[in-house]
């Protein structure tokens, strides 16, 4: 089960009124390498992973929901005060017609989130996929930072990118743990 803490993992501030950024950010919301995909993938995989790394998938999967919430906050702040005309100019006309001001799980190109989430039940295959997913999310953040002109958004995105680095590091360590010879005496 989960407890909900009513605050964001890291403060989200948006300084520039640029609804077009919302269109880019939504990639990390409902895109293939986004936070929702990551959260669902890890929380699903944890059942069939050796118990020594199950907790890691649980923790990281949970944290991804906190990231999802940060992205949602950015998108909401950028769109809530936009007129339909401004949304149209920002490339969000289709979105507005389909969803109004609601946030929605789709990618920057408007494709609905699909369950393109793999889970092989093979610990090494799953962890390698997770490492790749973290590196892909890291690069998505880089590309969004490159096209953003808002230092406050960039700050929050920098935080999220650093978390992907830490997650990748932890998944790599999980692979090392699973590779370890079982009879070997540990020397520290």
């Amino acid at each position, binding site marked *: 089960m989960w407890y909900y803490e009513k605050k964001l993992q890291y403060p989200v501030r948006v300084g520039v009124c640029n609804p077009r950024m919302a269109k880019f950010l939504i990639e990390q919301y409902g895109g293939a390498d986004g936070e929702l995909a990551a959260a669902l993938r890890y929380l699903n995989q944890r059942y069939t992973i050796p118990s020594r790394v199950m907790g890691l998938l649980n923790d990281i999967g949970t944290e991804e929901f906190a990231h999802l919430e940060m992205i949602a906050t950015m998108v909401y702040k950028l769109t809530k005060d936009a007129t339909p005309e401004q949304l149209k100019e920002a490339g969000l006309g289709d979105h507005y017609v389909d969803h109004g001001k609601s946030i929605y799980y789709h990618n920057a190109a408007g494709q609905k989130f699909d369950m393109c989430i793999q889970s092989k039940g093979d610990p090494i295959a799953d962890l390698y996929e997770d490492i790749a997913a973290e590196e892909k999310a890291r690069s998505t953040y880089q590309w969004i930072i490159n096209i953003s002109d808002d230092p406050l958004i960039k700050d929050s995105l920098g935080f999220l990118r*650093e978390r992907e680095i830490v997650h990748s590091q932890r998944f790599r360590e999980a692979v090392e743990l699973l590779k370890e010879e079982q009879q070997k005496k540990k020397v520290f």
Partner: protein
Amino acid sequence: MATYRKWYTPYVSPLDPCPPLVPVSYETPVQLYLGFQPTGMKQFSPFEALAHGTLWPGLFTPYTNPYASKKRRHDNDG
């Protein structure tokens, strides 16, 4: 110590339609080099940890827009 950004220069054809935007960079952050995290690494204070997105200075690999330091080459200056 490892560098966290690498550069390479792809082939530039005299027939390319756009002026070259080289060199090309890619990121090679710390997790590619660290291996299993050693014990006893330095920690940030809780506040600094929040600001950096990690508790560990040794895992902090910030990012800046690499295009900011790139110049378009308009002629054959090398």
